[in-house]
């Protein structure tokens, strides 16, 4: 969120239009970052569950119900393994994509951060408040 951009009340450092633009971009990217990280976490969790399931399925001989949409569809053990594998690959792809996005947003943010700290020093706070 934008709430983390706090200017020090004691400061009277002049802010130019260009500075303001950088502050704005930083705030927006920070919002992106939060969302990307949440998505990544969710996908990593999915992947872990899918991989656990894939291991379990190997031991089964009966048809296995797998959730497709809102209903369970029964898959023969082989087909179940395939289905899970397909989902694992898809999830891995999304994770890879998310990591690329995160890296690029992060590098943009770091550049903005360096610029803004150089310009304003202690008069600006661009860190996330950790709980």
């Amino acid at each position, binding site marked *: 969120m934008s709430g983390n*951009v706090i200017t020090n*009340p004691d400061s009277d450092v002049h802010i130019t239009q260009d500075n303001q633009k950088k502050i704005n971009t930083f705030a927006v990217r920070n919002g992106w970052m939060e969302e990307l990280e949440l998505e990544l976490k969710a996908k990593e969790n999915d992947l872990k569950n899918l991989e656990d399931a894939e291991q379990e399925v190997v031991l089964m001989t009966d048809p296995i119900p797998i959730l497709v949409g809102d209903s369970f569809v029964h898959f023969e053990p082989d087909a179940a393994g395939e289905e899970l594998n397909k989902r694992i690959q898809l999830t891995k792809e999304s994770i890879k994509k998310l990591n690329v996005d995160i890296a690029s947003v992060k590098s943009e943010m770091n550049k903005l951060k360096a610029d803004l700290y150089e310009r304003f020093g202690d008069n600006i706070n661009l860190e996330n408040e950790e709980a």
Partner: protein
Amino acid sequence: MLAMLTDGAARWSGVEGAPIVVTSWRVNCEEEDTIINGGRFKRQGGVEFVDDVDAFMQLPENAANSQNVLKKMEEIYSKIKVLESNNVNNKIRLKNQIQELEKSIAMIGELKNRKAANEDMSTHFRLADHVFLKAKVKPAEKVGLWLGANVMLEYDLEEGDELLRSKKTKAEQTLKTTNTLIDSIRENVTTIEVNMARVYNWDVKRRQAEKEKLGLAAN
């Protein structure tokens, strides 16, 4: 403003499934714009960047009265925040919508697989929210799609798949627009936050200067 949003939400699930969200924002934006035009903070519903606080405070309508200026800014600030949360709500709704569509597409995909293999599909299907029933589904040719407004139509698997996919694409486009909107709203939020901080600082400085002056006079 809210009426428009509800209208948009209702129409969203309509037969045509046309995403109305963007239009409703435009209405909001124009409304905000007319309000904001009253102050010096216009620019297509946006917040104006204050370059020189001192010069800004000397403007006739500001009359160096930081209390009034801050009050005006805070009013605008809370209006933009409302706009932001409306759009964030839209975004959440769209994301849910896309997720639901993906579920339906996945199920039709499975039906297509079974049809291609000419294989019965054994399921536990959802009868009610927490009730599942075992059933065997013969290879299906047709599938009923809920179009909203209490209307369901039967489609060939292929047609149904296409329809759901095009709905999903539309929803994704609207989500993209909404995201861009939220970004630009956040830029405005940040600008006005900085404006407020600077006007506040300007006032602190002014008061200090006055105090010093008084102190000098007393000496």
